[in-house]
């Protein structure tokens, strides 16, 4: 009687999770060395952990390869891939690091993961023609004024909320793969914007007033309403020059539900 296929795949999945061959041995020809099943288990962990190395370069640089892979193996066991592609795998990595013992010694580690994640999200996000001075003028001509326009950040952008001011250090780690000297990190929240400009992903820690402005836009408010909120934060906020800078940076697009949902 041939083995039932569902029993076989169940037994195989249990082996991949636990490393214990168990009933799986019964599906082999007599005399087969069941140690060979480890080829598949090793392959599973290698491909998932290699993906995490690639997706979390700053965390990897900070921890070193051995420790990173050790932690990643625990992560894969806890949060296995759910979709048949590893692109973007590891969404829960920062959350996992929040609870990991290592974060007692390196409490800014989850924030590093958040920035790595933000970079990846922006790198693979949808393309979109950003607003230009010409297209803004056309919009104004269509509707009479710019202030009432609903404008959003481009899809290839994200704002990452950090508990530590680590944006500069993250940039160093990302660029060089190491830190040349000890750095002091302030335990002070930071809001950081990442966005794609041409092929490059750019990053900038946001002053509070800009964060208020962007958050308002992301909530679907008009430019006028976002500017009012920003001026409550800082009465000297110069919306005209700020808006021009955003256009020059290619950060704004005409708002649609689809674009807002990316942020």
């Amino acid at each position, binding site marked *: 009687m041939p083995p039932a*296929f569902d029993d076989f*795949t169940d037994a195989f999945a249990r082996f991949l999770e636990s490393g214990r061959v168990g009933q799986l041995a019964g599906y082999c*020809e007599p005399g087969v060395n069941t140690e*060979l*099943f480890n080829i598949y288990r090793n392959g599973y962990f290698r*491909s998932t952990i290699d993906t995490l190395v690639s997706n979390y370069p700053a965390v990897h640089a900070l921890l070193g390869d051995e420790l990173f892979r050790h932690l990643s193996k625990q992560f894969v066991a806890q949060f296995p891939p759910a*979709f*048949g592609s590893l692109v973007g795998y590891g969404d829960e990595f920062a959350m996992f690091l929040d609870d990991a013992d290592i974060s007692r010694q390196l409490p800014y580690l989850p924030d590093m993961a958040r920035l790595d994640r933000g970079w990846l999200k922006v790198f693979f996000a949808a393309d979109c023609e950003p607003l230009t001075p010409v297209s803004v003028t056309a919009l104004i001509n269509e509707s009479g004024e710019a202030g009432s326009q609903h404008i959003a950040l481009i899809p290839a952008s994200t704002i990452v909320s950090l508990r530590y001011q680590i944006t500069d250090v993250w940039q160093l780690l990302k660029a060089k793969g190491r830190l040349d000297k000890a750095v002091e990190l302030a335990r002070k929240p930071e809001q950081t914007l990442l966005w794609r400009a041409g092929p490059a992903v750019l990053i900038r820690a946001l002053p509070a007033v800009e964060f208020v402005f962007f958050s308002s836009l992301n909530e679907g408010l008009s430019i006028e309403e976002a500017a009012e909120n920003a001026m409550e934060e800082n009465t000297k906020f110069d919306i005209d020059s700020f808006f021009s800078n955003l256009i020059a940076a290619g950060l704004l697009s005409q708002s649609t539900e689809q674009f807002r949902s990316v942020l």
Partner: protein
Amino acid sequence: MNAVESVSDNLLTSGIGLKPAHYEQALVSTAAGLWFEVHTENYFIEGGQRLSYLRQIRERFPISMHGVGASLGGPSLPDRDHLAKVRRLVDQLQPTLVSEHAVWSRLGSHYFAELLPIPRTRDALQRLVDGVDCYQDAIGRTILIENPTNYLSFKSEMDEVDFLLEVCGRTGCGFLLDVNNLYLSAHNCGLDAREYIRSLPAQLIGEIHVAGFSPDEKFGNQLLIDSHAMPVDESVWKLLEFALEHLGPKPVLLERDADIPAFNVLMQERQIAHAILIKQGDKTHAACV
């Protein structure tokens, strides 16, 4: 002439697997007959540089889409979201060939990111047939399925060739013969590679893969692993020659997925495949004359 033959005819040369590190050089390459293969799931993204390069390369070269994550032979049908993403890429890129593996990799919502083996039973055959049917229906065209690398022998009711040919017969899909996988299956499990090739109907073969293997860390040369991390071994090139003699000229793809060398090094290795194809083409021509 069947569907597999007619599309493959547009690609009767040698190609290489496309890697992000090679995008710039690939784009400006003037090598005659060059084509590229991409791993389908690596392009399950919304936009950015990676997709942009692929679109530009597609404007200049034929491409083949090779899936690694659909779990065609799994306990449940391929995931609908997964198939929708493949369909979107197929529509955008219009690849010359689309292929997948005769393996499984998903159970429920758990993706194992590995090409897992199927025991060759009637039950498993039906799952693979259903998976291929589902994939082909979703993308609106036929695919090729690739023979797996075997590391250990399962209790089975059929030989691998009969198993895969029956899937082809029942679904209309073609066969992607991975010569390296076949060499390793022969080495690891005692299968007769040349007999296997002799059993294949030439008209079903839409593409051939070659790649490098590595000895297992523990068992050494007794157990060879399909690593794609080394140049193609001489014995695999010889098996390719034998395959082309039996099957006639077919598109040959050089795979390299780890320890990736410079583009020009890979292109030099591709020349070996190219030379074998040209030699085989000359023989076929001479035979016709």
